């Protein structure tokens, strides 16, 4: 018998949309498999990161666990409670940090927002106030407690959203991209908080920031197009690409990516354009031999100039690229 | 200073002018139609709405009149046929609301969707955004007028004078100019005030109250009669109904048209100026995307 606080077994979710002509005539049915047979357990007291690009299915998984979306098949249990059959118990057992700064009431102050939600968890007014003040203090927002949320900064509002998830001291936390859109200072604050003050909780954290997943997670699951591609500790995952070198090149101009992919020693290749420069990332067994061949190729390609290159230690992005053929940020 | 210019930039620059603005306004109108038609309920509402607005008036009128004729109305305006009187007068409600609310809130809707700043950063004129919305609402409201009048004629025994149709359309064209002035003013209120919709509701409901759509002006208290006479909507309704009930023999045509033209010029000029200054003020405040 499985006794993990979070247990997911073959969880799938398919969204069906129907395109119609003249309002009533269905002409095309689109099926989007947002989750495909996800199986995952999170042991007590661990932080598991769910890393993947936008549209991979991270938020859909969180919403299924949070009982906001009905899965198409499979089961999920939170604190031993089935999220479909025992949904109220499941919701009582978890705190969810999901949604952006608009998920709080802007016409209420930070304290009023937290007291309101605390009361929905059956706290008395005094208990709710005490708890709200405690959390606001831990978030460094006590001096702003009575200001209307509409007058606070984006980062402060996100801290309130985060604090809300902790109101009833839940043993399990679902954190859906909690640092998205935050400036580096606020984001670092939140990560530090999660790492240091929530070590005793069981946490599922979704993110598309590799360094965040790397820094916070005991184990990481890589997800793409609704499927779990790989699962393990950050170290284990990087070991999967240990045999490969990753060459990063900054170029001016556009390289012929198909030719590069066709080179015999190349395992995978991708490029993206940022600020007028191309960044080419190529993996191969021998990074240095690859560098020689690529530099020769770039030299011969008109309009392309190599500004910088380096052979790097494998990152989670390399793992992702090996598994899917593209980078997380693509 | 030399500017780097691509071919597409040069082409875009060369096309500046009224034609480009008109095309842009048309593209906006089509875009709004596409969005509206993607909601099946909106289409249903559009078809059913004229009936739902007219039927309570019809039932109320029947309850008090006991039939299709009214001696009291005859004393007031010279016609016994209250059904036709009200059907024609109230058919303009849809057009009025469409233009005031639809156009007035067009920028607010873009604001709420988060697309306003993007639109404002294109090279089209700022007022073109409002004109584009107006084109949509004019077609939307115009179809509503036709639908309601058509339904009234087919189902409720309303009769109109066929000779009056074209001149009545001319009155509508004049009405739109005045209403567009109001729509510009409404847009300003909406951009400035977060609860602007309440002010707009007051203004539009007030204008509709003093317009002789389902009753003549003389039924209103004297002070409201003066307010009514200063509204382009009043003369639009009078002219529209006058032509459709009396055809070319409509006797109030000169007064209605002249007054309407003057009021149109005043309302349009005022509305356009107000919009110009408000839009600049909002941009100066950096408040375009706030909601």
């Amino acid at each position, binding site marked *: 018998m499985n*006794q993990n606080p979070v247990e997911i077994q073959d969880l799938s*979710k398919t969204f069906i949309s129907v395109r119609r002509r003249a309002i009533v005539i269905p002409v095309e049915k689109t099926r989007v498999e*947002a989750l495909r047979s996800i199986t995952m357990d999170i042991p007590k007291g661990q932080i598991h990161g769910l890393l993947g690009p936008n549209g991979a299915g991270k938020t*859909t998984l969180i*919403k299924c666990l949070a*009982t*906001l979306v*009905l899965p198409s098949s499979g089961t999920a*249990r939170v*604190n*031993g409670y089935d999220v479909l*059959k*025992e949904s*109220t*118990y499941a919701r*009582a*057992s978890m705190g969810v940090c*999901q*949604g*952006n700064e608009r*998920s*709080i*009431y*802007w016409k*209420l102050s930070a304290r009023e927002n937290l007291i*309101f939600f605390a*009361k*929905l*968890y*059956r706290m008395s007014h005094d208990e709710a106030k005490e708890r709200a003040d405690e959390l606001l203090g831990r978030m460094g927002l006590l001096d702003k407690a009575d200001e209307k949320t509409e007058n606070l900064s984006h980062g402060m509002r996100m801290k309130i959203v985060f604090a809300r998830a902790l109101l009833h*001291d839940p043993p*399990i936390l679902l954190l859906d991209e909690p640092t998205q859109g935050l400036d580096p200072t606020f984001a670092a604050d939140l990560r530090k908080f999660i790492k240091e003050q929530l070590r005793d909780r069981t946490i599922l954290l979704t993110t598309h920031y590799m360094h965040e997943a790397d820094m916070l997670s005991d184990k990481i699951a890589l997800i793409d197009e609704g499927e779990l591609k790989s699962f393990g500790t950050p170290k284990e995952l990087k070991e999967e690409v240990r045999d490969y070198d990753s060459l990063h090149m900054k170029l001016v101009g556009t390289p012929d990516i198909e030719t590069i992919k066709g080179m015999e020693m190349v395992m995978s290749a991708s490029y993206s354009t940022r600020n007028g420069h191309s960044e080419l990332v190529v993996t191969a067994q021998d990074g240095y031999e690859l560098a020689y061949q690529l530099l020769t190729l770039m030299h011969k390609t008109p309009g392309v100039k190599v500004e910088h290159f380096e052979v790097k230690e494998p990152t989670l992005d390399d793992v992702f690229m090996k598994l899917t053929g593209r980078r997380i940020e693509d | 200073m030399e500017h780097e210019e691509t071919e597409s930039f040069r082409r875009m620059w060369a096309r500046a002018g009224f034609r480009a603005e008109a095309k842009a306004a048309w593209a906006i109108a089509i875009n709004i139609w596409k969005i509206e038609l993607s*909601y099946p*309920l*909106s289409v*249903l509402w559009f078809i059913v*709405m004229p009936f*739902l607005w007219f039927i*309570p*008036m019809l*039932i*109320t*009128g*029947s*309850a*008090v*009149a*006991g039939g299709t004729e*009214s001696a*009291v*109305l005859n004393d*007031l305006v010279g016609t016994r046929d*209250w059904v036709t009187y*009200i059907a024609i007068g109230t058919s303009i409600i849809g057009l009025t609301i469409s233009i005031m609310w639809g156009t007035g809130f067009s920028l607010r809707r873009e604001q709420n969707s988060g697309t306003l700043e993007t639109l404002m950063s294109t090279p089209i004129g700022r007022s073109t955004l409002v004109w584009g919305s107006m084109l949509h609402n004019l077609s939307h409201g115009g179809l509503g007028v036709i639908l309601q009048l058509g339904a009234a004629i087919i189902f409720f025994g309303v009769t109109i004078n066929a000779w009056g149709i074209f001149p009545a359309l001319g009155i509508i064209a004049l009405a739109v100019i005045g209403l567009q002035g109001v729509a510009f003013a409404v847009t300003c209120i909406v951009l400035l005030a977060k609860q602007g919709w309440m002010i707009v*509701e007051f203004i539009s*409901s007030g204008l509709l*109250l003093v317009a002789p759509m389902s*009753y*003549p002006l003389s*039924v209103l208290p004297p002070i409201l009669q003066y307010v009514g006479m200063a509204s382009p909507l009043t003369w639009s309704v009078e002219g529209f109904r006058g032509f459709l009930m009396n055809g070319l023999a409509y006797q109030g045509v000169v007064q209605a048209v002249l007054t309407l033209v003057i009021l149109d010029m005043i309302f349009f000029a005022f509305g356009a100026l107000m919009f110009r200054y408000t839009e600049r003020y909002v941009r100066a405040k950096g408040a375009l995307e706030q909601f």
Partner: protein
Amino acid sequence: MLTEDATPEAERIKTPYLATFKPRLMDWSAAKVFALKNLRIAIRYPTNFLIWGILPLLWYAPYILMMIAIAGPGTSQSFTELSGFDDFITFSIIAVFVYQYVDKSIWSVGNNFRWEQFSGTLEPLFVTPVPRISILVGAAFSDTLQCTFSATVLLVISSVLFGVSYAITMVAPIVVMLTMMVFALYGFSFMIAGLILVFKDPSVLTELISNITYVLSPITYPLQALPSAARFAAVLVPSTIAIITIRELAITGLFQPLSFLQAFASMLGLVIGFWVLGVLAFRWGEKWTKEKGSMGGF
């Protein structure tokens, strides 16, 4: 009240909160908390209360003016024969007052979840273990209070403007009938809330329901003015019986126990019927949005 039976399987983590937690079918304290939250937010828009007392007047005045234009000021033989009342202005204004509750239940209560959805706060609410019905009831409480205030303002202003008066001695039975109507309207608005969660263009749906309800309601005309099929449908609208009864009491000042009891029994039937329908419709709407995954979208 307990709902789900927890499966006593795996070792579960117990916190002080979880140790005493039991799901409930209806959480009255959560409803109260939600109502207070809504009222707190409403109070931060103080002009709302006054405006909602005056705006409806601008909407109903055209009907009254139309009646005056067709039949002359205040009275009409045809109207008297049809309705039994000889003053259509007095007749209409009291009905307008009662109808405010219907309007509020459609536009405010029915749209409450939509407003939460639009604001981005619906999913955080649904993630709590509070029964959804409690949130709906809380929203309804808050809106009833606000409506009572603004409807009273409307009644007073209209009465002064049009020079009408009503029998104050009948306040008690009027309040009883109003309360029954409000309860029935709660169920009605739960039904609308469920439909609105499903349909993406709620303003149109709400307009449709609002206008159909208005047409069927005997506000500016008696029930007898409607075609017979429509009369049957009209009686199913929660406010129709209430409008007829309250109007009779307020204008005539006469209390007839038998007919009042009949009206009360009919209202009770409507309360039960609409609550069942409303809760079912809401649950269906909620399930639909969960399946589609569109809970947080608008």
